[in-house]
């Protein structure tokens, strides 16, 4: 003792001890301040809320009562017998009554209100407001898709402090941390008790962690449970308790704690967990459901209700008993809850909210205008064009299609694919599928898989010819072997897919049947330059290399780029940039930016209309005709198949009156798939378009400078309806064509002569 005193009183000893204490203090301060800093960053990392396009209801919209019911379920509305408050709806065979929730759109706030929607004949017949007055238009609140974090790409369904159900808070404290309200970050008795148990068993068995410690653990540290970790955790917990009040910590806890796993995607926070396990909003949960979520805190994998239902049930009931003991719920309620089944949904319905491919596009389009920092600014709301119904449809058709196509070919690696759906008139991207694994946040093939487009390029070759004024689809071109000498001196001999040549054929047939030799001939006659110009004008950022092989699609583009090109075709030669973001609004509801609808005429609409009529023929008689098995009779569509060398890429791009869709199928390792555009991509595209709600026939009005005329499909000579191989196309008014033998339209010819006479009389 005396020696110790001596050491302490001696100068060097004193300094050493002081230094050690000082170092300890600094260490604690550093750890503590670091903890507060990180907490602050994440706490203010309030995600930008991203929303899908709102469903607009109006008389005439193709929709039935069950369809609206599905949409309302997706929005978190509750189906009831009698509508009593916002967020509820009642379903009858031809009528839906609903009470919408207040929602702040980008242009105004819509208050909560009652409405009635009447249906008939597969469409909405009328809309009425609360007073029974007729309404023209009702905009439903948009579905919230998720969030964009600047610092970490995780998903949250943020629960605001006043939306946290009190019973959840009570249950958490009761089960995890009874002294939460009183302690300073650590619960010493709990620690001592746990230490005693652990010491006796020789390993770490009990937790003894407060909610604050659990929060710290989930924020900063990995799952290692060493004493060193516990020590750091303790310091951080105390630091947070010093700095923040209990409400703030609880709020963070409710939104942060790890509660499950969906593939590669971690489920954090009670808001998301509520959806993930029960398909409900947190506010909609019943006692036994809340109890299950609280039970999961201890071990989401170990107590996974889908994989280990017995364990989950047991622990949940333990929680319920605890709640009864502490009189948080009365005994009867507890008993009733214990009797209830787990109630988790078989498959997570969070899938429809989680759109990694589409969100990827949204992020990229936002990044051009907003820095990461400003996105991270709290409360930005982003309104997009995503149509959840079409998205689900596209996902289903692609995934089902790939499975079907895969099974016919056993040895090869997995087929992959991508799909994009747009509304050409507005340039809105309404759906995007980046690959077979819908929920995976990985390689987005729709945006980033650049593949040779093959025959998809041909419509633009023919458009160049039509725009030159020297051709119509009735002209002929020789589909015969051709040798092209390149600049390097090498020779290129393009072959037809069937290895046969067809002689002199109409441009229409060469396009519809996708003849390579005819196309090359035509393209060389017109020149590569006009083709390059068209591709750039139609949306490619840079012109592709000007080799003759470009005429057969020797250029690598992503499905998104292809969609941009075809969108301009579908839009009569008017280019509108493809956009996913409609507007961005700050917390106050002030619009920060709005994507305006802008158009630019980049081609002669008359040439485009003539071409598109040819693309309709692709689907009637040409390489796309197998689509007819899927499409309803009255639905006219236009499109083009695309197959690259050795069948490595299977493409289809096509449009109806309202929608454009591009589908690509291939392998990531670029090995041949054995699928042509028709056999592969078209077999996904066609059922998708057929099922597309509210899509109409492609039947555009064209100017008086064009006139319809019947020609023979093979020869291009003038024919008449119903005679032989007659097809109707558009040609510039006054085009004179030779006559198809055996298919003369005598009356028509006389009429033409008369018309000529009358016209000449007028001059």
């Amino acid at each position, binding site marked *: 003792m005396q020696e110790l005193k001596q050491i302490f009183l001696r100068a060097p000893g004193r300094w050493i001890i002081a230094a050690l204490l000082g170092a300890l203090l600094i260490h604690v301060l550093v750890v503590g301040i670091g903890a507060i800093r990180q907490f602050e960053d994440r706490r203010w990392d309030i995600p930008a809320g991203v929303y899908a396009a709102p469903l607009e209801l109006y008389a005439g919209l193709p929709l039935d009562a069950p369809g609206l019911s599905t949409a309302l379920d997706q929005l978190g509305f509750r189906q009831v017998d009698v509508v009593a408050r916002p967020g509820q709806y009642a379903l009858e065979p031809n009528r839906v009554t609903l009470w919408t929730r207040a929602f702040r759109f980008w242009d105004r706030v819509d208050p909560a209100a009652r409405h009635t929607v009447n249906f008939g004949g597969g469409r909405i017949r009328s809309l009425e407001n609360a007073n029974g007055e007729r309404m023209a238009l009702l905009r439903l609140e948009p579905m919230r898709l998720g969030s964009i974090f600047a610092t970490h790409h995780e998903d949250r369904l943020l629960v605001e402090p006043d939306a946290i159900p009190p019973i959840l808070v009570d249950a958490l404290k009761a089960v995890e941390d009874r002294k939460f309200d009183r302690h300073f970050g650590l619960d010493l008795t709990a620690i001592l008790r746990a230490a005693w148990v652990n010491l006796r068993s020789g390993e770490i068995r009990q937790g003894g962690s407060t909610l604050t410690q659990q929060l710290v653990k989930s924020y900063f540290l990995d799952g290692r449970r060493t004493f060193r970790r516990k020590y750091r955790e303790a310091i951080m917990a105390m630091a947070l308790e010093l700095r923040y009040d209990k409400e703030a910590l609880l709020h963070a806890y409710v939104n942060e704690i790890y509660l499950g796993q969906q593939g590669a995607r971690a489920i954090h926070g009670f808001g998301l967990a509520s959806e993930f396990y029960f398909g409900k909003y947190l506010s909609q949960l019943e006692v036994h459901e809340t109890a299950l979520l609280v039970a999961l805190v201890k071990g989401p994998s170990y107590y996974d209700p889908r994989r280990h239902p017995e364990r989950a049930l047991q622990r949940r009931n333990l929680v319920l008993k605890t709640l009864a003991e502490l009189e948080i719920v009365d005994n009867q309620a507890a008993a009733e809850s214990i009797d209830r089944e787990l109630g988790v949904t078989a498959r997570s319905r969070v899938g429809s909210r989680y759109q990694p491919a589409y969100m990827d596009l949204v992020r990229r389009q936002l990044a051009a205008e907003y820095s990461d920092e400003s996105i991270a600014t709290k409360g930005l709301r982003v309104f997009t064009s995503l149509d959840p119904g079409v998205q689900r449809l596209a996902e289903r058709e692609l995934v089902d299609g790939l499975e079907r196509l895969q099974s016919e070919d056993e040895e090869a690696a997995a087929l992959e694919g991508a799909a994009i759906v747009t509304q050409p008139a*507005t340039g809105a991207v309404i759906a995007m599928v980046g690959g077979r694994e819908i929920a995976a946040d990985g390689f987005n093939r729709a945006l980033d898989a650049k593949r040779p487009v093959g025959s998809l390029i041909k419509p633009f070759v023919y458009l160049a010819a039509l725009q030159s004024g020297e051709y119509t689809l009735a002209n002929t071109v020789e589909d015969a072997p051709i040798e092209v000498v390149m600049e390097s001196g090498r020779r290129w001999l393009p072959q037809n897919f069937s290895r046969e040549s067809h002689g002199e054929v109409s441009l229409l047939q060469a396009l519809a049947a996708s003849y390579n030799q005819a196309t090359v001939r035509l393209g060389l006659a017109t020149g590569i330059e006009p083709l390059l110009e068209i591709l750039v004008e139609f949306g490619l950022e840079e012109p592709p290399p000007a080799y003759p092989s470009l005429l057969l699609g020797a250029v690598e583009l992503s499905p998104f780029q292809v969609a941009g090109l075809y969108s301009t075709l579908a839009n009569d030669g008017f280019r509108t940039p493809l956009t996913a973001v409609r507007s961005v609004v700050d917390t106050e509801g002030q619009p920060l930016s709005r994507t305006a*609808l802008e158009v630019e005429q980049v081609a002669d609409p008359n040439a485009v209309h003539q071409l598109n009529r040819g693309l309709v023929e692709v689907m009637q008689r040409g390489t796309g005709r197998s689509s007819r098995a899927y499409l309803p009779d009255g639905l006219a569509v236009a499109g083009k198949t695309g197959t690259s060398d050795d069948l490595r890429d299977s493409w289809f791009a096509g449009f109806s009156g309202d929608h454009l869709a591009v589908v690509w199928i291939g392998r990531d390792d670029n090995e041949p798939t054995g699928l042509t555009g028709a056999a592969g991509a078209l077999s996904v595209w066609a059922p998708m378009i057929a099922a597309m709600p509210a899509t109409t026939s492609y039947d555009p009005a064209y100017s008086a400078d064009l*006139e319809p005329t019947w020609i023979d499909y093979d020869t291009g000579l003038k024919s008449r309806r119903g005679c032989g191989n007659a097809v109707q196309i558009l040609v510039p008014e006054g085009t004179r064509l030779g006559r198809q033998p055996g298919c003369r339209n005598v009356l028509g010819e006389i009429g033409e002569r008369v018309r000529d006479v009358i016209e000449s009389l007028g001059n």
Partner: protein
Amino acid sequence: MRLLLFVLLFGLSACANLPFDPSPSPAAGDSASVAGERVEPETRSGSAEAVRELVASSRASRAGGDYSRALADIERAIRIEPRNPYLWLELGETHLIRNDPRQAAATARKAMSVAGPDGAAKAAAEDLLERASRR
């Protein structure tokens, strides 16, 4: 007799061109005139009410100087009826008023391209185009 023959031959000249199944075109009796006068939007299906309401709202916003809102409303209408030339014309008028003659001209051309046989719409589009190029 000659009149009869003339009529017959005239009728025959109509056989020269059997048109496509005509797209439902906007009603012939719409009140439209050229020189900048109001052109009432004709719509083709049950969405008429909704579109009219949006156009009315858009015009009100435009008159009040809230061009952002005016654009947003007419764009909503276009989403419902993308091939209605009158909606594109409304859009063009707003672009003109907010001093974007380039977009006004572009939307006028777009209106023309979807107008088809609707002479009134075409005339209104040409008028808009002319006013836009004057700026």
